[in-house]
């Protein structure tokens, strides 16, 4: 791999940029691999990367039915935070945040991680109690968060209206280390690093069936032919249920649409991420100046990557109340992603009823922030065949055993 550096830019500037090589190779699939990962989104590529980096397994293919990073990795609002209530969540999301902090150097690819700070507004007394509890829990978990006053919120976010008629701002949960990153760059950076380790990234290759022998996985039928593998990792978010069905087991997952949108670009006006969970909208400003906006999921099962208009209206109504100055902004683009929701709104990183077949799914509406930690934990699980400390609590059998990691109660909303 040709390293990116200031010297590389200087060298290429002198030869009219004719020497840049492709960031990753696009080979045809081989007949067999040690590991096949289904899904070349952030989580799948991160899994492959840490399999190679941490465990020395590089005979790996990452197969993708669409294009690299074209699913939810390219459809989120790029928010990164680790201020979760439950211990297993805080552990894996904070691992992810720590890895994000050094990711550009690690991958030699600028993922534009911007730890600009993140606020979760408390707008009801119930929420104040909830966030104070989270701050205390984070303190015990070693995750630095703090409770701040409405005045401090106003200092951090001058455009906010803290005296709204319905839901005045009563304070906020503040994580200074939270922020955003460039979502595509995360997928591209991992893909480039995987390719450099000799892994094959195979796009437009859809899985049509999972073949198993004697209760263990043998390979996958794809649109580019049969690919044998010793271990299979399923990392496909919205279509996890369909893939599990091919392998012959069921998941406690439902797929729903989550929408997001961006405004026309404006001058810098907000340099933190603000989430308002009571009225349910969140907003940050991208480096291009667009206001990046998200809200709640649509309420019904949906695989169409588009949602209902009235949900956008609800989100914008909430945010106009919170940030009156955005009321005349034009919204430029809107999109939807299919998110995989579990009953306790926590992910699944688990062995499955099929031998040597592992699954990483259920990230629901909050997967982007977890990509490095998720890949790290999934790689550990796949390499050893047993979950490490990060993944241990996220087994798919926790729903039967009653060991929920209940973040739906902790957040009050899908998050």
């Amino acid at each position: 791999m040709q390293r990116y550096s200031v010297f590389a830019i200087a060298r290429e500037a002198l030869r009219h940029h004719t020497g840049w090589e492709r960031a990753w190779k696009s080979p045809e699939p081989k007949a067999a691999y040690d590991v096949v990962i289904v899904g070349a989104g952030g989580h799948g590529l991160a899994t492959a990367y840490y399999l190679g980096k941490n465990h020395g397994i590089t005979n790996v293919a990452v197969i993708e039915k669409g294009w690299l990073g074209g699913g939810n990795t390219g459809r989120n609002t790029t928010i990164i935070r680790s201020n979760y209530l439950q211990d297993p969540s805080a552990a894996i999301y904070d691992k992810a945040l720590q890895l994000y902090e050094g990711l550009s150097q690690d991958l030699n690819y600028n993922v534009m991680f911007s730890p600009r700070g993140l606020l979760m507004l408390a707008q009801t007394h119930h929420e104040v109690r909830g966030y104070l509890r989270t701050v205390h829990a984070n303190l015990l978990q070693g995750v630095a968060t703090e409770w701040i006053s409405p005045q401090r919120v106003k200092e951090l976010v001058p455009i906010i209206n803290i005296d709204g008629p319905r839901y005045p701002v009563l304070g906020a949960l503040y994580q200074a280390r939270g922020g955003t990153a460039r979502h595509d760059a995360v997928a591209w950076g991992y893909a480039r690093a995987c390719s450099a380790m000799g892994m094959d990234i195979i796009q437009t290759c859809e899985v049509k069936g999972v073949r198993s022998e004697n209760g263990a996985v043998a390979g996958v039928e794809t649109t580019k032919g049969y690919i044998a593998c010793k271990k299979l990792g399923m990392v496909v978010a919205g279509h996890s249920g369909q893939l599990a069905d091919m392998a012959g087991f069921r998941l406690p997952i439902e797929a729903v649409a989550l929408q997001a949108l961006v405004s026309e670009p404006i001058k810098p006006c907000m340099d933190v991420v603000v989430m308002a969970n009571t009225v349910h909208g969140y907003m940050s400003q991208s480096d291009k100046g667009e206001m990046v906006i998200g809200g709640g999921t649509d309420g019904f099962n949906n695989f169409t990557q588009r949602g209902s208009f009235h949900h956008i209206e609800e989100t914008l109504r909430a945010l106009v109340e919170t940030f009156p100055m955005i009321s005349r902004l034009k919204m430029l683009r809107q999109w939807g992603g299919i998110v995989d929701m579990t009953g306790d709104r926590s992910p699944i990183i688990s062995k499955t009823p099929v031998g040597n077949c592992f699954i990483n799914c259920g990230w629901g509406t909050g997967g982007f922030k977890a990509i490095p930690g998720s890949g790290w934990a999934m790689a550990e699980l796949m390499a050893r065949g047993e979950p490490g400390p990060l993944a241990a609590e996220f087994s798919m059998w926790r729903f039967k055993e009653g060991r929920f990691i209940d973040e739906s109660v902790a957040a009050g909303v899908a998050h």
Partner: protein
Amino acid sequence: MLLLECPYCGVKAEETELTPGGEAHLKRFGPGSAPEEFEAYMFARKNPKGVHFERWRHAYGCGKWFLAARCTATLEVFGTYPAQCPEPPPELVKKIKAKRPNWKGWK
């Protein structure tokens, strides 16, 4: 935009009048049931990409719960029926089979 006809009041209700209620025809389990049964009732869902039977409430209309057959891949609505039906009406199943020949049936 989804339009579902409420089988009770006959109104063609638009999505904002309705509240979605998840998968229909779930078998309920109570105290004394096995962990597997609770898991099946509370968490295991069919989540099909295609024909789906689900509960809806005409929240801003007559307020009643009803059931609907809908395609999650295209958002096409096949029909609605009262919540008292223990399984989808045969004529609705026939209609769906005609439109989706590869559909494996509702169970």
